[in-house]
């Protein structure tokens, strides 16, 4: 669209240009190196991070476990777990999916992929340095920013390169139409470096005085979820749902409303982690209001996705991609509405400071974001290596282990957290009872960790198979529903 008028920019009457399969194959091939490298390292750190999470989960019910080893103390394992799954797994997975989507949607091949390969190596080096820093006791005890001051510049440099390179693709895009996924991708790749730089300058490199730190800390920590992981996850959902079922997104107008309300309200949410904390009342109240307002983008997006899927739910029977993505999209609605309720002070006074919050975090980062990343990888990886997933049954195992594991984990933490919170709130109740109420649920959580790791190991096995045997003998895609193979083979996984 070349018309300069403002109206034309919101004119819906533009269609994406046709993308033929040769061009598409070229673009996909150009992203092969960096995307596979990001995916591979992400899966490795996911396994490591989950292992650390599993050990910390068991340490909380067995405090004597490894208790004389300084680098295995709970207060180091827990931040190591969080940082590995957040920066080792989730960020590279998001970058990989984001790069691939951006290249396809902008219709430009990725140039100079070596730069991104180097960035990926530097990023993972930063993760390794940061992880060692936490384990030897240099962790900063600032949630989501535990990596010591000597690790974060490495990560920032790597990320800045990636971000610039992705934004450049937007600059050189071929299609006049900008699809909804691209809005989210563009915003996410701009927001994250800004977030990361601000938080590191004010909290790690030149720390401001104590009283101001909590606000900046939670502004950052919540926006990593809201303005980085969430947009990438939604971009993937907005791309893969219509792609797999082959029909347009329900409503362009709902997409617009959902995007802008998310941008405006999510960024204000952070202070709801500090309700009652030592901050001026208006800051907390502003975050409470913004958290309730999150109802708007969440319901809008949920309606948009649901109406797109309507009448096509049978596709969940055969498409692994769609099954993971839809699980993630539904979880997004659930976790966001839960977040809205948790921010209401009357309910927050029970759930605050308890395992309930941990359950909420896993619902967001695993049931929503990680599941969408799994789904995206099931679609992307075959197109990069030129082969098909070796075994649909293993994909089915991966899905059910992940789904059951995360539902068990979130359910246990939610119930245990509620009991713990009621005991903490009740004046007549002792502190001891808050521990005793939560303990059986914490054991369940530990068990759910094994189930989740089982699913991850299956996925890692499948991924390694794809890398080792590209162009495998298997000709048809790995669909779940074998009886229906003939008709489905002609469409995407």
């Amino acid at each position, binding site marked *: *669209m070349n018309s300069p008028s403002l109206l*034309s*920019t919101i*004119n819906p009457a533009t269609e994406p240009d046709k993308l033929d399969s040769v061009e598409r194959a070229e673009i996909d091939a150009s992203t092969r190196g960096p995307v596979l490298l990001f995916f591979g390292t992400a899966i490795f750190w996911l396994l490591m991070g989950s292992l650390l999470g599993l050990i910390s989960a068991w*340490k*909380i*019910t067995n*405090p004597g476990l490894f*208790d*004389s080893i300084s680098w295995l*103390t*709970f*207060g*180091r394992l827990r931040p190591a777990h969080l940082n590995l799954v957040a920066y080792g797994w989730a960020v590279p997975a998001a970058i990989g999916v984001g790069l691939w989507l951006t290249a396809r949607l902008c219709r430009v091949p990725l140039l100079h992929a070596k730069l991104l390969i180097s960035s990926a190596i530097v990023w993972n080096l930063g993760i390794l340095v940061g992880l060692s820093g936490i384990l030897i006791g240099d*962790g900063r*005890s*600032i949630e989501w920013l535990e990596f010591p001051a000597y690790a974060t510049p490495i990560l920032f440099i790597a990320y800045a390169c990636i971000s610039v390179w992705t934004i450049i693709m*937007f*600059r050189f895009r071929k299609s006049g139409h*900008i699809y909804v996924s691209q809005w989210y991708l563009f915003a996410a790749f*701009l*927001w994250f470096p*800004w977030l990361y730089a*601000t938080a590191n300058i*004010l909290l790690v490199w030149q*720390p401001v*005085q*104590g*009283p*101001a*730190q*909590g*606000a900046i800390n*939670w*502004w950052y920590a919540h926006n990593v979820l809201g*303005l980085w992981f969430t947009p990438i996850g939604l971009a993937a959902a907005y791309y893969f749902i219509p792609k797999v079922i082959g029909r347009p997104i329900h409503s362009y107008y709902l997409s617009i409303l959902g995007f*802008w309300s998310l*941008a*405006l309200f999510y*960024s*204000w949410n*952070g*202070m709801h*982690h*500090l309700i*009652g904390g*030592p*901050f*001026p009342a208006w800051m907390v109240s502003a975050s409470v209001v913004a958290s309730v307002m999150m109802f708007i983008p969440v319901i809008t997006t949920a309606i948009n996705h649901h109406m797109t899927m309507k009448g096509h739910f049978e596709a969940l029977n055969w498409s692994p991609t769609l099954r993971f993505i839809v699980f993630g999209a539904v979880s997004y609605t659930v976790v966001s509405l839960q977040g809205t309720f948790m921010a209401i002070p009357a309910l927050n*006074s029970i759930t605050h*400071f*308890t395992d309930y*919050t*941990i359950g909420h975090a896993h619902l967001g980062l695993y049931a929503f974001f990680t599941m969408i990343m799994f789904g995206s990888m099931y679609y992307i990886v075959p197109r990069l290596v030129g082969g098909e997933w070796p075994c649909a049954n293993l994909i089915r195992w991966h899905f059910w282990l992940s789904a059951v594991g995360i539902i068990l984990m979130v359910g246990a933490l939610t119930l245990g957290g509620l009991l713990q919170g009621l005991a*903490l709130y*009740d*004046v007549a109740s002792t*502190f001891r009872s808050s*521990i*005793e109420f939560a303990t059986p649920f914490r054991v369940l959580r530990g068990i759910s960790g094994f189930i989740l790791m089982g699913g991850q190991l299956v996925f890692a096995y499948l991924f390694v198979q794809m890398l080792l045997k590209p162009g495998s003998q298997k000709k048809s895609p790995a669909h779940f529903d074998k009886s229906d193979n003939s008709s489905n083979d002609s469409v995407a996984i």
Partner: protein
Amino acid sequence: MNKLPLIFVGIFLTFTSAWIGLVAYPTLNLANVEPIPDEETGGVLPPTTSGMAIAGQKVYASAGCMYCHSQQVRWAPLSTDIAKGLGTRQTVARDYIREKVAFLGTMRTGPDLSNIGVRQTDANWHHLHLFEPRTVTEWSIMPSYRYLYKTQKISGQPSNDAIQGLRGPHAPKPGYEVVPSVDAKALVAYMLSLKKNYKLPESPEPTAK
């Protein structure tokens, strides 16, 4: 929305609004809070802390105490913190001006520590608790911090620093004693310094039940 620059302006402005409210505002208003004079003693509030206590903050961060212990007292009826004896008033910005990192915390897997220096005033108690938490509180789920302590043979006079009254499986054999490392001493000094029982005008104590 087919104009990239317009989208850019939009995502820039929405993000900036929160950046001003939640980053710039606290940086300008909460990062230069001064202590106030204490009319009773002629000192300042909050009181200054010792160098050992400041060193202890680093140990606190390094051991990750913050992941289970909060350091904030909230107002009623939002919370029952004050009724439960965690403090006498809500904690406010000025309470944290001595902290290099404000360990507000988001979990109470263990109890709140805003006023642990008021509740437990005995350094030896803290050492016993850190060395083997279950000798002082049998149902505790806190991990042991034995790696901050050294068991050594008593040569000549027993050390003045040795922990008194150790029991349990990790108690020293006869002729041996357990002494705290510098880190352990700093951590305990920090624990003892955690007292938010002075009065601040911006945080009135609740006057009615």
